[in-house]
């Protein structure tokens, strides 16, 4: 059982900020991993903003998630500058290696695969981001080697 009192504390910490909903949701997501219905309901109670409006915001922005995700989020860029430098081949190889499609999580809960919008690192395209770490100049082989590394670390920590 999660301690929903933390939601109240987070809301309270923004009482001096005008229209802080997005900040509140960011902090709440950090605390609980994702924005569950239970958590969002509590945010609605604490902020007195209608739940429907909060749900609308939570589903609009790509950094918010209302579903639980894998331990590592793999965000691949497929925007035009990455695309003309071969991001499609990289992406295909990653999908093959992880055995999942976009927006899916591996059965072991290790990786969630998503697209990212342009990260502004186009001079080293193609690019992907794993959690907060950025990797550039990718080839299909290099991408898989990076993910293997995360897998090894994950297994040794387990």
């Amino acid at each position, binding site marked *: 059982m999660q301690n929903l009192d933390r939601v109240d504390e987070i809301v309270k910490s923004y009482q001096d900020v*005008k*229209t*802080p*909903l*997005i*900040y509140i*949701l*960011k902090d709440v997501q950090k605390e609980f991993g994702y924005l569950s219905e239970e958590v969002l309901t509590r945010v609605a109670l604490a902020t007195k903003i209608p739940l429907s*409006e909060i749900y*609308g*915001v939570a589903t*609009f*922005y*790509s*950094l*918010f998630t209302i579903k639980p995700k894998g331990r590592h989020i793999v965000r691949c860029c*497929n*925007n*035009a*500058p990455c*695309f*003309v*430098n071969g991001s499609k081949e990289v992406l295909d190889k990653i999908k093959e290696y992880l055995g999942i499609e976009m927006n899916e999580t591996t059965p072991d809960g290790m990786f969630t695969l998503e*697209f*990212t*919008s*342009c*990260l*502004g*690192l*186009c*001079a*080293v*395209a193609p690019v992907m981001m794993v959690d*907060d770490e*950025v*990797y*550039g*100049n990718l080839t299909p082989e290099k991408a898989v080697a990076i993910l293997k590394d995360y897998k090894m670390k994950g297994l040794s920590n387990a």
Partner: protein
Amino acid sequence: MHRIHILIAMDSHTLAQGARAVRDTLIKELEMASLQNEVKVIETGSVGIYNKGVVLVVFPDGVYYTGVKVEDVAEIISEHLIKGRVVERLRYTDVPSEPAPKAVGEAPRFGKQVRVVLKNAGRIDPDSIEEYIANDGYEALGKALTQMKPEDVIAEMKKSGLQGRGGAFFPTGLKWSFAAAEKAQPKYIVCNADEGEPGTFKDRLILEGDPHAVIEGMALAGYAVGASMGYVYIRGEYKMSISRIRRAIEQARQHGLLGNNIFGSGFSFDIEVREGAGAYICGEETALIESIEGKRGEPRDKPPFPPSVGLWGKPTIVNNVETLANVPQIILKGADWFRTLGTEKSPGTKVFTMVGNINNPGLIEVPMGITLREIIYDIGHGIPGGKGFKLAQMGGTTGGILTAEHLDLPMTVENLREIGAGLGSGALLVVDDSQDVVELVKNFVEFFNHESCGKCTLCREGNGRLLQLLERISSGHGSIEDIDLMESLATTMMRGAFCGLGQAAPIPILGCLKYFRQDFVAACSAGAKAAA
């Protein structure tokens, strides 16, 4: 007193290639060699060299090193710093056949550049307000607050002819005069740093390289229109820019350059940072305002325009990072100086990011009126792998399409407008002749289909339908009617969509259809042949 300064470029590109570890090793090994009092290590923003690993510049010699690894640090210290011999194998050469550049600004790629907005980027420590001040920083603010009335500032901006560098190129001085004329209080200045256009990272590098220039520009805008509060709305993904601008704001407050009664003039101004949460549409000014208000970032109907009714219903100026970074220089050196740069109708410089199939990708600042050929071949060193030039997309994924026939067209706002393109956000995507135009256009439409905010039907449904048509054509099952339908739908969207996203999404599609229609026809008939 330090005998030698080593600048280490700590931008998002070099960090991804290990700059932090090199810096730590450098500091540690300098201490071990007891050189810490003689050699100063300065972190700076981008020096404009990309994809060449970690970049160091050693002063006073002005030697550039690229591809520096942790294990190279000891050699640089023992050879260069102690014995005075340059480590040739790491020295940066701009063009393989030419001798290495000796100092900042001497490399051929810098030759055609004029640095106004980027004058400090890669030269000063962006975390040090003292270095900014030592380079004329906050002098423009002091001049404006003590010698100019707000209307003088606006008049100077109007005279300069500066146009908004976010993509719309609306005259900045004119926009400010609208907000200045409003009676409602409070008023707000918003810096639009929500940079989501694919291929564009100029604003991030301005913020990372010279955050105080943006703060000073915002304070000048605040003084001109009568605002006392500013917001920097910045992409949540831009962690480094966020921490740099936060630190810079704090330093400015400590020095009395933000806060109450700045320069004893009675003018008060402060800035808060607002982080985005991942939505391309939030770069549109009214969607951005909605997002600061804690809502879904959907665009508002215009008019009323933000200078009259903006953030929390109050007069609001939304300016792009690059626009604001131009302002201190214009106020300090005057509109007449600014007009000596660029062309009559498009004064000043433009910061471009050059990406795609290009030998020397990266960030450049050039006078308006430069040609595509000069940018691609003189500054970017052409196309890799001996391939030919197929097309360039100017201004990000919403940008117009330029082909070989436009290589010698002077790039100005008015010239590009004439051929249905624009300078946009300043991203220049170079595409070589091995690329498939149909697949490229499909990639553009996938992007818009994902990023449409869903508010208006034309954009929400239109992009989805365009994608279906393109999938059919690219799989070889399309027909000439599909191509015609695509063109007609794109034209309708351009005319009827609610905001800039839906109106601009068709631009590259129509551009590619105009210049490469035969490629689409060929894709259709490829399927027909296979079926036969």
